[in-house]
């Protein structure tokens, strides 16, 4: 093989005449993709944890209450949301077409600013309030830094 032939041979090789053997890759894909498609879950469930007060806990809570922990109460009504916190006067957030979540959020932040250790909000919905609304309110409370939520009737 002289030099001219060798150069031509290498050039031809680089020109893409040789193919990658894809059989193994295709085999892996054909097995993995159906398997993963079958096991895939496209909706992800989560939970909101909530604890009802029981007798032992009630005793403990009242001893905590003698300290400086503040409990805030949040009323959800058909046409407004009213947040009540000791020594802060907050206007009821009216519902126009939709509840005003931003106003509620800023009120909760106001309370959090005044009582940074306060963790509890008691949510008191009217009996006609939809479940979805309660969950949305609980989300906003958790975002604003009140993880201890309870619901009272």
């Amino acid at each position, binding site marked *: 093989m002289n030099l001219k032939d060798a150069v031509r041979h290498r050039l031809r090789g680089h020109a893409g005449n040789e193919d990658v053997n894809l059989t193994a890759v295709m085999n892996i894909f054909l097995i993995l993709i159906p398997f993963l498609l079958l096991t895939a879950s496209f909706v992800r469930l*989560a939970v909101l944890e*909530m604890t*009802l007060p029981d007798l032992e806990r009630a005793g403990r809570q009242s001893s905590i209450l003698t300290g400086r922990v503040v409990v805030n109460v949040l009323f959800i009504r058909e046409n407004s949301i009213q947040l009540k916190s000791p020594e802060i006067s907050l206007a009821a957030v009216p519902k126009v077409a939709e509840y005003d979540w931003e106003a509620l959020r800023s009120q909760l932040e106001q309370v959090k600013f005044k009582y940074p250790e306060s963790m509890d909000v008691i949510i008191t919905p009217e009996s006609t309030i939809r479940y979805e609304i309660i969950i949305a309110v609980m989300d906003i409370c958790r975002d604003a830094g009140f993880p201890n939520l309870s619901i009272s009737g």
Partner: protein
Amino acid sequence: MILNSEDSLINIVNRNRRNRRGMAVLQLTSMIDMFTILLVFLLKSFSAEGQIMTITRDLRLPESTSRDVPRSMSVISVTSEWILVDGRSVVNLSAITTDSPLMINGLKEELERLRLLSEQIGNLSTNLQGFRGSIAIQGDRDIPFDILKRIMFTCGQVGYNNINLAVLEKE
């Protein structure tokens, strides 16, 4: 067919044979691209523990920003018509009116049965989980608070104090 001097019969046969030997190459590039993207996406959403809680049919769970993963526990499902405990219908919602008492009797009996069962399981061996007082509620997003209040009250009376509200993860 007009044959010129180079297209002898032998040449034509040779050409046909070459084609028949499959020299045509499949263009797999775009398919491999697609498969790779699909594979990465599916591997990302793959979870080894699988689905612990199944979602009851004709029920639209509310969405929430919560990221707490559910653990395995009994589930009370509240659709727009029925209250189900672990998939079995227990009480029809039409039986609950605003002036009926807070306690839902059918639900209470079912929960008491469940509690007894889990306590007995717990007594069998220390390895088994007994009664822990936690229960999950899967509620349709349109059920009124009145229904929810009664269910929660009933759970609390039976001893299920740790209530988990099931929600869908918001994107």
